[in-house]
């Protein structure tokens, strides 16, 4: 089985937001839709003893997603490889899934024409991978810092498996029971 996950190396991320912009251009997103914001609390501490890190976000492609079972139309769904995606033709944009996601990673645009709005989210670039199975999500390719690593966690030889097996990783909001599949290597304390 193939199970795609992403490892995000916060030690390398410098908060340039290239992934955010790359994603918007590749997916031709409306302006108010951001699939993968890069967030930071800003510099912390007291000058000059300060510290800062960035958290690149995207859909967590949870193993137990909140957003799929709640969808009344069947538009929100999950592939065998773990990809959670939305069939835009089936979505009526009731936004129950938007409210169900603990990570705020879905939304429908307000800038699109009325009656043609649907909920969107990161699909791990499902379209790219369908056209070329070896393709990676665009944010991964475009990251100068190579802070985003994509791969199959079921393949013990994959880079993601090796990283998750060897470096301390964290996941966001595991308390919701969603079993998120984005693994963060923290800025401090992650031993390479």
């Amino acid at each position, binding site marked *: 089985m193939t199970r795609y996950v992403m490892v995000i190396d916060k030690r390398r991320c410098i908060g*340039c937001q290239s992934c*955010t912009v790359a994603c918007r251009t590749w997916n031709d997103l409306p*302006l108010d839709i951001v699939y993968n914001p890069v967030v930071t609390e800003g510099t912390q501490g007291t000058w*000059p003893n300060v510290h800062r890190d960035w958290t690149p976000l995207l859909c967590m492609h949870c193993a137990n997603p909140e957003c799929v079972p709640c969808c009344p139309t069947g538009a929100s769904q999950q592939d065998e490889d773990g990809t959670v995606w939305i069939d835009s033709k089936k979505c009526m944009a009731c936004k129950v899934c938007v409210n169900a996601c603990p990570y705020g990673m879905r939304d429908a645009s307000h800038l699109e024409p009325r009656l043609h709005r649907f909920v969107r989210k990161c699909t791990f670039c499902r379209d790219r991978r369908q056209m070329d199975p070896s393709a990676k999500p665009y944010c991964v390719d*475009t990251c100068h810092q190579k802070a985003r690593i994509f791969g199959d966690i079921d393949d013990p030889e994959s880079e993601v498996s090796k990283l998750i097996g060897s470096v301390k990783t964290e996941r966001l909001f595991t308390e919701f029971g969603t079993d998120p599949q984005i693994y963060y290597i923290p800025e401090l304390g992650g031993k390479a």
Partner: protein
Amino acid sequence: MTEIDIHADGVEMVKSLCYFCHANCGVLAYVKDGDVIKIEGDPDYSNHGGLCCRGTSALLHVNHPARINHALKRVGEKGEGKWEKIPYDQAIQEVADKLNQIKAESGAEAVATAGGTTRTDDWARRRFLNQFGSPNGFHNALLCWIPTFMAETCVAGWSPFETDLGGAKCLILWGMNPGASTLGGMDGYTDLQKAGLKIVVVDPRYSETASKADLWVPLRPGSDAALALSMLHTIIYEGLYDYNFVNEWCDGFDELREHVKEYTPEWAAPITWLKPEQIREVARMYAMNRPGCIQWGCTWDQIGRASTTGSHAIALIRAVCGNLDVPGGDGMPGPSLGFLTDEEMEANECLPEEQKAKQIGSNKFKLTSWPGYQLISDNAKRTWGKTLPTEWFCEAHGPSVFKAIITGDPYQVRALIVNATNPVNSYGDAKMTLQALKQCEFLVTVDYWMTPAALFSDYVFPAAGALERPTIVTHYGATDSFMGGRRAIQPKYDRHTDMTFWRKLGLACGQDPEMWPWETEEEAYYHILEPLGLSISCYNDFVDYYRMYYPPLHQNKFITNGGFWTPSGKVECNSSILRQLGYSGMPTYIGCIENEIDTPEIAEEYPIVLTTGGGFMPYHHSEHFQMEGIRFLYPDPYFSINPELAEKLKIAYGDWCWIETRRGRIKMRANVEPEVAPNVVFAPRGWWFPERDGSADLDNPFGCLESNVNVLTSVDDWDCDPMGGSWANRGLMCKVYKCGEFDKDYKPSDTQFSIPGSSKEPGVTVMPSDQHLAREPIPFEVPQPPEEVPEGYEWVWQSGNLYTKDTHFRLDESGWLINPRTKGYHDAYTGWRYDAAGECLVDDETGKMYTMDREEIPFVAGIRCYPGAEAAPYEVPENLTWSVERGHAVLGDLAYVYDPNSGWLIDPETGAFHDAYYGFAYDAERGCLVDGATGKCYDMSYNELVAEDPEQAASEGAAATEEGE
């Protein structure tokens, strides 16, 4: 969602290069039916497939509705925004006629051109200007590398800017934030750091890069010169320098040691706000982890009057630590000796000497204009054999040109061509610059966008963008490597590339078509590349098969060269070129323009230190504010302020605040976070609001002043670097206060300009000519040659050597000329090259060869002859005889010439081969010898072959030939 299949039929992948910043990352453009449908980073290029916000927006850029797509002619009043779209060539002709008229009336120097950052083929601009006769081209070059480059070249003969990080143990990123400016390099730093490289970041801000550093040095903004001098002091007085290198390769070290004696870390501590121990720590870290690199940072050139002092000191830190041009150190590429340099494309010989003298600012800021360039360039020609381009490295002083437009001092500049810059936002003293643009008699803009400059223009020309033009990277024409990308699509609408603009304008002005032989960039680039002798037949071949050219890695060139590329051949700790220009040969401290120590009266009213000019994601300079996808993420200008200071000033996160210096005020929103010291604010550069109606407020078109940090910067002559002319962006003193309920709009009084910018009165209060410099020139008498210099030679006082004036070859003690490029010998009288193999002289221009007595060597049938020689200079086969008269061996009285290299006789008329024994003709087809008289065939051993079986004869003959060989 539009799903686009880049693997579909009819989609071509074009290897292109990004041109939205200087990293020039590789881009793969997927083109279908003449349109780019998607782009990706090139995984096989140095960016490893990475593209930043700017690069990934290329498609938005190419198709943006607000791009200028046609030549526009102003039909209303200036600034009214009323345009007529006219054919491109018609616009070119109209502009050319006007320029010619101005030239006829006021001289060519009344026409100037402004550029911004490297975005164009600037050799084409200079090629136009040189033929037109104007010395007044300029860019923002003085804020970006050029003064540093020139100072470094004065020290060691070229800028050591190519860091060899793979072998380095320590890297100082000084005033440089690749994490937000040029992302292409940052991942390399991160990888090397993981592998053990120590990274020191010198930055007053806890920048993206500083947050990943091993050692962060948070100095006071603008105090870089003090830090550099005290580091130099520490390295010298703690004995951390490279003794062997200094002894062998440095000149004037003892003077330098004396000179920096007073610059102790304790002296620098109050200036830099660092502890003396911190300064020692950086100095030791760099000096004790050799080899190491210091990466150039823009900051060095943006501190105003203290700029080049700092970069000069840093150049000396590198030098005394022996990190010049060594593996793991800072490599000095020198000009390209293979492909043509930008300088060779500029046609600088067309510009008359008297026009050079008219270059605005060259009487003040000599290092980066004709006076300094001439010294440096002549020296480079003598040492490297090629030189720097004049574009960037030898330019008019931009702010002084703007002042000349307003004041007519030193003379009236009447026309300005603005190409690839938005001067109000990128040049210092924005209010004065805006006034100059408004006031300029004839303004032409070539740009992607309707900038404030374009708004006031008489003609606006549409420029082709990154995907619409091929791109080459040669680092301002100052390096020996070359990278290239193809044009993905032809320019859309009526857009033209910059080279085409200058070429068309040149031709329309009446310039010689033979001087503009290349219709497209591809042709010009192929011309540039041709001397490399690569197996390519066009420029696109180069991109497809090579993509980049690096000369064989050559480090330690100063050893093979027998010295550095300075006039003295040594690293000059006390630069002779700087002294000759009237500057101190060693860096002498001067503070940044406004600071608590030198100008306490200013600090009292403006107690906060402002730093600006640094690059930040996702914008680049003043670009990309139109890109909605980017702007959405960063819609408003935010300046950084420490929470302590914010609390004191009752400023909360997101509040709109005024930032005010002596020169004006702007408003930005507060980003309250401790990334700057409690007494420092950091303001991003470039802000304007292209979405606004520019014509609605001509005092502040497109809001180009209201959040523009250049309203706060200073270009007054006494604030500019007296050597390089850099104006002051860093370490300014300001005050910050919240926008009040009744004081939140930008008022007309906020837009008033003045010269000098710090004048309390609006308008011109001091004429540019009456403005003094921060330092008085130091008189310097160039020593006179001890004996008369022969005609055609010049005497270089530093080395005492004679050089030819035209070719810049050195006259050696042996009486020969030495070519600096090849180190080959040339005849001093004729310039002919000495060919050791042939023991003769060669005129490379005609290809003719001469004897050592400069007599032309006769060749018959391509064989060198020695008429008049009594004895043959080679062994003559037994059947032949030496002909004194004809100068070669002959067979009887036959006309054939004996070739000693092949051992055959050659028929000078037909070029046919004959054997040297009987004179039989060699039949290559049959592989046999043929006796012309009898028609009989022989093999190579003169056995007659049977005529009945010519095939066998032939094969036997061939076999015999093989054996013979």
